[in-house]
């Protein structure tokens, strides 16, 4: 009896030590991610992470929902400073210069060494890679990405005697149709100018054939004539053509405005698609933004980043996780669940997404628009530069400054901020 007990004790000690050593061998990853649109997105992320852990029993992932983009960045960097860093995170795609400057992240060009990894780096839509690529390296892998699209009320189009299947293709048409759509109860168009005015403005500038900054994040083009013209057009929509209300238009209540028929057309993120689909009481359409010189929209949304302060083993595991999360199947699942763009061509070739797009064509507008997309405004000192532009846009829309003065001032301030980064 005594012998038996001794044996049991011995085995249990061995067993326990085996168990702990198995635990110690597990690579532990902490990942922060943001959610900035409605819907049960945390559930989708959790289920994807669970699938990953099942496939990779040696890796343990702690996925932490961290609020909106701003919160996610603050939490990740705070954890870094506190000495309990996350290994990877989804953060705003335009945070890249700040993260490089904080020496917080490693580039995927350095992480992806094998031939297969290098091929994987090339598998995404090029437009989505723009914001994550600088200094000749890739720093961010697209995950929850969007473009601006135009939602329009087909019933209102019919009522105004317009063809509901022909949304405006260019700036002039948008004005002429907008005038027909504007009456006592309804505006023709609303473009939001709080929250992310620089984002909407990036679209107008691109449509007029200009971009807002260079690819190195060291120079802005705020006062180029075509850019000034674009802001003047935005202002004219309300003050001259009267198809849009005066003052600034609130990002947060715009969807409600559209859904309750107070505006016939709205520009908004494709991230709202599922919410509009669920709540619209009328027939609605989704169209690409209209063109002036060309069509155009900035991309938006979040990228994967890997933090510098991680062991080689964790880096390897992080890369594995990111590859899993961005695989065509998971990207398709993500896109259907949210409205975000599938990030690679292969995602749209999966049976699931193929079927969804066939049944619900608006789901592919944002993807098709990628052909005309440009990078979202992002430079060194990004927060400041963005605020300068936001303030200038709002100053023009609220009649404080002319488009020319506002953008000249903005350009001067931005140049001063960026002079050390050449």
């Amino acid at each position, binding site marked *: 009896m005594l012998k038996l007990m001794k044996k049991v004790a011995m085995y249990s000690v061995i067993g326990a030590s085996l168990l702990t050593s198995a635990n110690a061998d597990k690579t532990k990853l902490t990942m922060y991610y943001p959610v900035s649109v409605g819907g049960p997105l945390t559930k989708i992320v959790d289920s994807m992470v669970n699938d990953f852990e099942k496939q990779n029993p040696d890796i343990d992932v702690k996925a932490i929902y961290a609020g909106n983009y701003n919160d996610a960045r603050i939490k990740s960097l705070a954890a870094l400073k506190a000495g309990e860093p996350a290994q990877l995170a989804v953060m705003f795609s335009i945070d890249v210069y700040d993260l490089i*400057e904080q020496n917080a992240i490693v580039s995927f060009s350095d992480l992806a060494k094998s031939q297969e990894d290098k091929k994987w780096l090339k598998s995404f839509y090029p437009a989505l890679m723009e914001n994550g690529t600088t200094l000749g390296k890739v720093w961010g892998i697209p995950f929850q990405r969007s473009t601006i699209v135009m939602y329009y009320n087909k019933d209102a189009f019919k009522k105004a005697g317009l063809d509901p299947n022909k949304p405006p293709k260019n700036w002039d048409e948008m004005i002429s149709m907008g005038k027909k759509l504007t009456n006592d109860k309804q505006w023709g168009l609303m473009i939001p100018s709080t929250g992310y005015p620089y984002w909407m403005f990036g679209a107008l500038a691109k449509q007029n054939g200009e971009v807002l900054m260079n690819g190195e994040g060291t120079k802005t083009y705020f006062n180029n004539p075509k850019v000034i013209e674009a802001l003047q057009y935005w202002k004219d929509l309300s003050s001259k053509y009267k198809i849009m209300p005066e*003052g*600034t238009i609130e990002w947060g209540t715009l969807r*409600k405005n559209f859904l309750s028929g107070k*505006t016939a057309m709205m520009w908004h993120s494709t991230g709202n698609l599922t919410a509009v689909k669920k709540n619209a009481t009328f027939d609605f359409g989704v169209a690409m933004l209209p063109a002036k010189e060309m069509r155009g929209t900035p991309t938006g949304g979040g990228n994967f980043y890997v933090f510098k302060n991680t062991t080689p083993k964790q880096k390897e595991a992080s890369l594995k996780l990111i590859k899993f999360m961005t695989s065509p199947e998971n990207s398709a699942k993500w896109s259907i669940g949210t409205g975000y763009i599938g990030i690679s061509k292969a995602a749209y070739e999966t049976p699931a997404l193929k079927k969804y797009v066939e049944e619900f064509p608006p789901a592919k507008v944002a993807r098709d628009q990628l052909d005309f997309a440009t990078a979202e405004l992002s430079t060194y000192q990004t927060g400041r530069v963005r605020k300068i532009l936001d303030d200038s846009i709002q100053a023009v829309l609220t009649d404080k400054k002319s488009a020319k003065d506002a953008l000249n001032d903005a350009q001067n301030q931005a140049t001063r901020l960026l002079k050390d*980064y050449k």
Partner: protein
Amino acid sequence: MRHVYGWLLLLPGFILIVAFTHYPTVTTFINSFFSNQTVLKPRRFIGLDNYEYMIHDPIFMQTLKNTLYFSLTTVPLSIMIALAMAIFVQEKIKARSIVRLAYFTPTILPMVAVANIWLFFYAPEIGLINQVLHYFGFNEYNFLGDRDLVLGSTIVMTVWKEAGFFMIFYLAALQGISKELYEAAKIEGSSSWMTFTKVTFPLLMPTTFFVMINALINSFKMIDHLFILTKGGPDNASNLLLYYIYDVAFSFFDYSYAATLTIVLLSILIIISLIQFGLIEKKIHYK
């Protein structure tokens, strides 16, 4: 031996105050004389450069102006309304407790929720206020999109939120005033206005003083609503000092400039407290 006990009893509070108040204050003060640290630019001593930049920073000047305006309007307004409400619900009216509850309700709600509700009150076209204006044939306003209206709109919301909270203090104080004083006033034939100015109001002074300090400090701390309502816009028309500090620190990553701005905020609060405790308190009648 007694000394040791005394110090030991003080120790927990002392540690907390040093760790979370004095130490951060001192490091903030020191940081404001250094440049911001990034990989490209290491931290170095720059003397008063941050302060010089601040004086020429138009956004700082705007936020300072807005903050002072915000405080000097919300504080007296919410105190006056709180006092009026307290006197009203002190009297024997019908459904007194329901009215009291109604006045107090805004206080229970979190600021972010309040801001979300008011976002839809203020919205043009679909907003409650505009629909009422429209119904009676008035012009509609873009409350949050018009630089002349936006700060006023946030002030109205703040007063609505704050007044109910201060009412509770006044209500408690009113119940503490001895009935005999009112009986005496009645016998002397004092009018109700006279009774209020000569009896009620002077006896409420300690409460008013307490409420005023709280209200002023609150008004400088109040930024939650800006995250939802306006983000300080349009074009900084509703930006407040603390929100700007948050922006500088966490959107711009400029911790040293944020430290500089924090020192300014701190100085303002210290000056206010000195004035309150040094000058005003002496004139207050305590029982």
